[in-house]
C-alpha cells in the first residue's frame, strides 16, 4: 500500500537533490535545472496532499506553479544568454563582481 508518506518522502528526496544541485554546480544551466527539480518536488507534494485530502485546490496551485516555472525558465535562460555574451562563459564562479 502506497501511502501519503511515501509520496512526501519521495518529494522531499527530490527537493534535497535539487538543493544540493544548486549548491554544488558551477554551470548556471545545471543550477537552473536543479531549481526545476525543486519545483517539481513541490508539485508532487501538492498533488499527494490533494489526493489524501480529496481536495482539488492542490491541483490548481500546481498549475500556477507550473506557470511560474515556465516564466522563470524563460527569464533565467535569457539571463544566462546575456551573461554568456558578457563573459563568454556560463560558470557561476566567473560572475563574482559583487563578491566582497
Amino acid at each position, binding site marked *: 500500500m502506497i501511502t501519503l508518506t511515501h509520496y512526501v518522502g519521495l518529494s522531499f528526496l527530490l527537493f534535497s537533490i535539487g*538543493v544540493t544541485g544548486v549548491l*554544488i554546480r558551477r554551470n548556471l*544551466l545545471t543550477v537552473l535545472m536543479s531549481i526545476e527539480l525543486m519545483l517539481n518536488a513541490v508539485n508532487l507534494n501538492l498533488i499527494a496532499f490533494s*489526493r*489524501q485530502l480529496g481536495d482539488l485546490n492542490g491541483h490548481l496551485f500546481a498549475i500556477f506553479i507550473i506557470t*511560474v516555472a515556465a516564466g522563470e525558465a524563460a527569464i533565467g535562460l535569457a539571463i544566462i544568454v546575456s551573461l554568456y555574451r558578457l563573459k563568454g562563459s*556560463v560558470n557561476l564562479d566567473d560572475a563574482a563582481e559583487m563578491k566582497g
Partner: protein
Amino acid sequence: MDPSVFFFWVFAAITVVGALGVITMRQPLHSALFLLLTFLAVAGLFILQHAEFLAAVQVLVYAGGIMVLFLFTIMLVNVRRQAKEPFVNRRAGIAVLAGFFLFLLVGGVLTGPALVKKGPPADPAALKTTVIENSTARVVVPGNSEAVAWGLYRDYLLPFEVASVFLLVAMIGAVVLGKRSLEKFD
C-alpha cells in the same frame, strides 16, 4: 501485487535516478536529458494520484516547452570545456554536507510523530467530478479536466488572469534580455 504499488516504485526510482543524473553529469546536455526523464516519471506519478490533467500539462509544458528552451540555450551558449576542469564549485564538499543535513532534518520531521494524519486517502470524488448547482438545477460533471477547469475559471479566476499578465511580462522580459544589443533598444 497491486499495479499502482509497482508503478509507484518504478516511477519513484526513475525520478530519483534522473534527479541524481541532473546534478552529477558533466555536460549540461546530459543533465537536460536526465531532467526530461525526471519530468516524465513525475508525470507518471501524477497519473497515479488521479491528476490526469496535470500529468498532461507536465508533459506539454515541462517536457515540451521548458526542455526545448533548455536545449536551445545549451546550443546557443555552446559550452565546450576540457574534461579535467571540475564541474562542481569550490564549496562542493560543504554543500553536499548541507544538502545531507537538510535530508536528515526533513527526514526526521517526516518520520517523527504524526506530521500528517495517518489513514487511507479520502474519497477522490472531488478530484474526478464537479458538482455545479444553482437554485434550480444540480449537475454532476465527470472528469478531472472538467474539475480543474471549473476550479480555475470559477474559484481562481483572478489568479488565472494575473498569471496571463505574468506570462506576458516574462515573455517581454525574455525578449528584451535576449536582444543582442541593449543600446539599440532605446
